[in-house]
């Protein structure tokens, strides 16, 4: 397929369709409203469903209801909207339904601002809603990767019967880049006759299915949580994605950075290289599961004096980086979160001063 020039938000919408998701529920919020605008126009062409919910709270449950029927379904929002959907996310995780949530992050807390941010790292990877659950979180660095991750998200959600989140920032949503929609990322939906409320007639069954997150019996609840736990462990074995940059050198420092921020770091690394300073980078593509081993191994390299987590937040991912580095090297942090993405020169200065 030929490359097309698309905005991240629109590309995510098209990627969902290409992934076989024809059901979309959303509530407008900057900087991701273009997804809804795009799909409102595009879904009727493919006999799809779009409902603009009355709130993100309601949208969360529209997703839950549709997912409970075993249909592919997606919503997109931005930080404050995801907070409102977090209630449903917890229920969906508890009820074990596959669904895809896209968060095109803006600044916070509160209304914050509408510019790019990575301030929802904790919310995405550590919970957000209540209870013992995780989302499988993928963080694209650009429009092409946003497309690929969106397409992968549906089969992953079905494999683990749980919510998957694409965590981008405002720039990923607003930027246009050339994209291709790879055919090989489409996967047929898994059979869900054993759990989805698809109607007994459709399944040719006489046994009802119940989609619920309520387990009043302590043992049943514990078992449900053990099932979830086992799945998160499986994700850690099978779904970790990361990318190494300039790590075949004797790098003096190791950057850990993701999404838009990692691109700025890449340019900074190129600049520093020209000036004779080698810096490596590990870019987590999945934030949960986190590339623990990759970061540890890269930090362990003898030439590496320090690890620096660079984020568009006030130090969230750095806690995971510290955990992975296990004290073998000092872990530093740099970040900005007002919405102004630091320039490569700023990053180069910061890295150089932290290493001296």
């Amino acid at each position, binding site marked *: 397929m030929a490359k097309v020039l698309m905005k991240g938000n629109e590309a995510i919408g098209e990627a969902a369709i290409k992934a076989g998701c024809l059901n979309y529920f959303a509530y407008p919020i900057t900087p991701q409203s273009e997804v809804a605008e795009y799909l409102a126009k595009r879904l009727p062409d493919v006999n799809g469903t779009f409902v603009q919910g009355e709130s993100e709270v*309601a949208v969360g*449950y*529209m997703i*839950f*209801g549709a997912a409970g029927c075993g*249909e592919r379904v997606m919503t997109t929002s931005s930080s404050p909207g995801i907070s409102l959907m977090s*209630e449903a996310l917890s229920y969906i995780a508890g009820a074990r339904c596959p669904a895809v949530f896209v968060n095109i992050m803006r600044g916070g807390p509160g209304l914050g601002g509408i510019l790019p941010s990575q301030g929802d790292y904790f919310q995405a990877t550590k919970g957000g809603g209540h209870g013992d659950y995780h989302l499988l979180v993928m963080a694209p660095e650009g429009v092409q990767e946003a497309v690929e991750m969106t397409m992968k998200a549906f089969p992953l959600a079905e494999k683990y019967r749980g919510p998957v989140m694409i965590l981008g920032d405002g720039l990923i949503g607003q930027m246009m880049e050339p994209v291709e929609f790879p055919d090989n990322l489409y996967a047929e939906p898994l059979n869900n006759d054993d759990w989805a409320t698809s109607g007994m007639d459709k399944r040719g069954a006489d046994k009802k299915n*119940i989609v619920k997150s*309520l387990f009043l019996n302590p043992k049943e609840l514990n078992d449900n949580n053990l099932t979830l736990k086992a799945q998160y462990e499986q994700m850690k074995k099978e779904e970790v994605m990361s990318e190494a940059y300039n790590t075949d050198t004797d790098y003096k420092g190791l950057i850990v950075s993701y999404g838009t921020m990692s691109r700025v770091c890449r340019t900074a690394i190129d600049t520093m290289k020209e000036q004779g300073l080698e810096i490596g980078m590990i870019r987590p593509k999945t934030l949960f599961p986190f590339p623990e081993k990759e970061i540890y191994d890269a930090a362990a390299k003898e030439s590496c004096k320090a690890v620096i987590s660079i984020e568009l937040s006030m130090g969230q991912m750095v806690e995971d980086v510290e955990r992975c580095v296990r004290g073998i090297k000092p872990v530093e942090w740099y970040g900005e979160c007002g919405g102004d993405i630091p320039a490569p020169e700023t990053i180069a200065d910061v890295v150089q001063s932290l290493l001296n």
Partner: protein
Amino acid sequence: MGKTFSKPRALTDVPTHYCPGCTHGVAHRLVAETIDELGIRGKTVGIAPVGCAVLAYNYFDCDFQEAAHGRAPAMATGIKRVRPDLMVFTYQGDGDLASIGMGEIIHAANRGEKFTTIFINNAIYGMTGGQMAPTTMPGQRASTAPAGRDTGSTGMPVKMADLLSALMTPAYVTRQALLSPKHINRAKKAVKKAFEYQMNNTCFSFVELVSTCPTNWGMTPKDALKWAEDTLIPYYELGEFKTPEPEEEQ
């Protein structure tokens, strides 16, 4: 045959956890009988609320989802929009529907979502232990209104059927009661009508059922019927507030 009476197929044999004399069981039966009579058990998805009917999925023998407090209409929207061939109903109480879920019900109704809502109005929060509901009567005691509901600070009870019938979109809005065999027979007709409208692809249908809560009202089941008849019915007027027919005839 007219007098033969037994448990409908769409109810399981699981004994309900409802208190003695609670009319939830009656409402369950009416819905289950309707499902049987329309032959739709294999394509029905019910949605349980948070409230006393939270375990409704154990009592109905059809597919069920369980929503968060108040969110059932949003969930039903999700189901019905992606699977218009399914018959979808929400079963909600007054704390769930008229308080925390007011936004969801109003908007689902106003979008004309093609599902049916069964709304149990017993003027109190049952499951959490008798707290004041938006439907609690003036002066009625509740655990969070120990001196009785003070309308000066909490407003007047919300009349959901009246409120929803003020919307232009919904097709069928009715309020019935479960306080006597006569009421119940009428309520049955209303429930069946609501499901039939849904079957015919007519938009949103809403059946409010005035019910009792003997336990939290602190009354015997018999007295509860009497109190509801004397106190609730004059305020929560019974009848059909909105039907699709007049428009269809035009």
